[in-house]
């Protein structure tokens, strides 16, 4: 097949895109300063649970306080559901559980990476969680909400679940009274 200038330009772009994709499979490239640019350029990183498979669940829990420090028990935000046959085709819950998983995992990563522990309070995942919790009903007379992220080890736990992060108590602003 003979190629004209258009085909040659497209061929060159595909070759560069593919070579960047190959390079991005190596951890060194995917963790380099170029990584954000690679994702903008649609350079994929194919992992499929490799090399280290996810082996735990992250749970978001919250409790409410009054000003004089009476607090409710921790409540778990759970979006996990039992698998069904229909779920192989229609699974609206999947995005929500992946969203909660990514946000809570990002909180863990941020908590470990930030030198200033206060810094996490202005991170996007932290703000997402606070914004979400702020919209959930609250038992009067509580006005303060606190959350924590717990790492848990599945249906047949082989380790004790443990605390990843506990937020400060935050004054609720826009909550509906439940």
């Amino acid at each position, binding site marked *: 097949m003979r190629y004209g200038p258009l085909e040659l330009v497209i061929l060159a772009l595909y070759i560069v895109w593919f070579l960047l994709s190959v390079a991005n499979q190596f951890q060194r490239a995917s963790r380099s300063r170029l990584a954000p640019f690679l994702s903008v350029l649609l350079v994929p990183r194919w992992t499929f649970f490799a090399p280290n498979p996810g082996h735990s669940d992250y749970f978001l829990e919250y409790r409410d306080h009054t000003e004089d420090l009476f607090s409710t028990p921790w409540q778990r935000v759970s979006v996990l559901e039992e698998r069904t046959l229909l779920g192989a085709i229609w699974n609206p819950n999947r995005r929500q559980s992946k969203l909660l998983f990514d946000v809570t995992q990002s909180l863990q990563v941020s908590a470990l990476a930030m030198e200033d522990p206060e810094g996490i309070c202005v991170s996007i995942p932290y703000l997402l969680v606070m914004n979400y919790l702020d919209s959930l009903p609250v038992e009067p007379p509580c006005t303060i909400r606190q959350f924590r992220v717990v790492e848990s080890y*599945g249906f047949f736990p082989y380790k004790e679940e443990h605390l990843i992060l506990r937020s400060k108590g935050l004054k609720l602003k826009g909550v509906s009274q439940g």
Partner: protein
Amino acid sequence: VNVYETYRITLCILAVGMAIFSLEQVVARRQFQPGGLSSWDVLSLKRPPKALPWLNRALAPLCDYPGVERLLWLRLASVALILFAGGIPFVFGPAIFIALLTTSVLLYRNSYGTDGSDQMGLIVLVVATVYAGSGFMNSVGVLGLWFICLQVTLAYAAAGISKLFSETWRGGSAMFLIMNTGTYGTRMLAQCLRRSVALQVVSAWGVMGFETLFPLTLLASPPFLYTFLVIAFAFHLGCSLFMGLNSFLWAFASAYPAVLFCYASLH
């Protein structure tokens, strides 16, 4: 093999998946609303690309609520055109372009909760847009199909080789660890794997073997090719059933017509 028809089949498979996921997101719209876990009120605070500092403000009408729901309906409309009017080039081209635009905005908006199936879907849409943009030139289409074929081959091979370097995968326990989680697993399968180390090892090596050897499909005889594609499809079907990863089934299956096309070109 007709290049245009190969793209039509590719995009029809992808479009079915896109329709399902758009509807799933419409049903789960609570996440996009102001108090939702994926609220644009917060996500708009993320730093836009340096070259496009105005991007978050410009996209606000499409990313806030109910803008994002309208965007999902627009994507559904483009998907319907791909499915039902794909035979008409002057409808097919714009429909692919709208599907690409809406998908790109949604992926930019949703920084959290996306996965490899979104990447594969976006790659297919970009390549199809290039083909449509060229006026459906056969030569451009062939280059695109080769690119999709190489990307899906890379996807499986990279995942397989990466697993080979992991002690957890080689020892087999990876399968139990994944299936034991509520996020990605199934209690029943976790229980079976927990009881049998042999099952752990066989299933882990089965996944690693199929993924690592996938590139050989292009060079092997037809029965080997078809066997591998059936295994790959069954693998994604299993991931849908037992892990809830339904989007991978459509996104990756949409790349198989490109594999078949390239195989036919080679042999």
